């Protein structure tokens, strides 16, 4: 039995969009080691995206390819979580590009990796053998992403006054976006089953790491974003323009 193409596309878009976002640190990392760590993280995610897009193309059997899915769809066709398309800055930063904040990067990676660890754990036993194989590979990668992000989050929370304040601001800003992980979606339920078990495991991880970091758990309420329904923020089109422009100027180019 194959998983729904829609849900696999959502997983692929998540990986691609966060991979693209994190790649923005390439050459701009706070220190050389972190520059490489984030580039490694992005390459893992883009690798996952490729495998998932190839699987979507098989499931759809309509002539689409990994490239057509990544580079020739528009914003409303992307089904990624809104959390993953946000720039590396809090809401009121005067310039998203100039005000890149590593606390946002790390906190988002932490929240999403903690979630994906549970998703991949579940999917490694899925009846769709292709998806299960992708899950086994991705599980190893996401374990490291989670370790890396949690390690830094604890250092930030437990570090200087400024690093603590930035980490708290990041978690306060990002937490409401995680509601989308758990909002009702038949395509997800069809593949993952009852997500309330995943939710409580995720909350436990988040709670443990925040406690260790000395950070306060903010309420996650308010507006529930709908990126996975194709309704995106104003940041998404800029990200896509940068990512897709080359492929669209030179369709089918190889090197």
């Amino acid at each position, binding site marked *: 039995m194959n998983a729904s193409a829609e849900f696999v596309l959502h997983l692929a878009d998540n990986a691609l969009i966060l991979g693209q976002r994190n790649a923005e640190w390439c050459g701009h990392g706070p220190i050389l*080691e972190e520059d*490489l*760590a984030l580039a*490694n993280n992005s390459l893992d995610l883009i690798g996952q995206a490729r495998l998932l897009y190839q699987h979507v193309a098989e499931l759809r059997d309509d002539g689409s390819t990994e490239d057509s899915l990544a580079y020739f769809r528009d914003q409303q066709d992307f089904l990624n979580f809104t959390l993953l398309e946000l720039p590396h800055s809090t809401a009121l930063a005067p310039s998203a590009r100039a005000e890149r904040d590593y606390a946002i990067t790390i906190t988002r990676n932490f929240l999403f990796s903690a979630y994906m660890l549970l998703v991949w754990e579940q999917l490694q036993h899925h009846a769709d053998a292709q998806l299960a194989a992708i899950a086994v590979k991705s599980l190893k990668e996401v374990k490291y992403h989670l370790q890396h992000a949690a*390690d830094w989050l604890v250092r930030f929370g437990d570090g200087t006054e400024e690093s603590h304040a930035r980490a708290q601001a990041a978690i306060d800003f990002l937490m409401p976006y995680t509601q989308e992980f758990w909002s009702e979606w038949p395509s997800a339920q069809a593949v993952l089953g009852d997500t309330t078990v995943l939710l409580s495991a995720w909350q436990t991880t988040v709670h443990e790491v925040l406690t260790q970091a000395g950070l306060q758990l903010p309420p996650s309420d308010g507006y529930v974003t709908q990126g996975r329904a194709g309704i995106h923020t104003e940041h998404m089109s800029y990200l896509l323009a940068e990512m897709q422009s080359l492929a669209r100027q030179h369709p089918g180019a190889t090197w």
Partner: protein
Amino acid sequence: MSTSASIANEWPLWEVFVRSKQGIEHKHCGSLHAADAQQALHMARDVYTRRQEGVSIWVIPSAAITASDPGDKDTLFEPAKDKVYRHPTFFVIPDEVGHM
């Protein structure tokens, strides 16, 4: 030039050793700055094992290494130069000994 204050603020330096295969020794491959040993291990993984270079990593505080003085090179190492008999290949092994 770094002032002594900025040096004090820097993360300590760690030497990184990577073992490329089971059974092979750990080899020195470089150094990096990190706040503590655990972080040094993480960073070494990201910096030095991206091309499948390793199956195991050691990190050691650079400050813990005591090194010989390059100025003592002649005194320390020159005297070994004319003592070729210290190499096992210097000796002819009688045929009766067979394969060693």
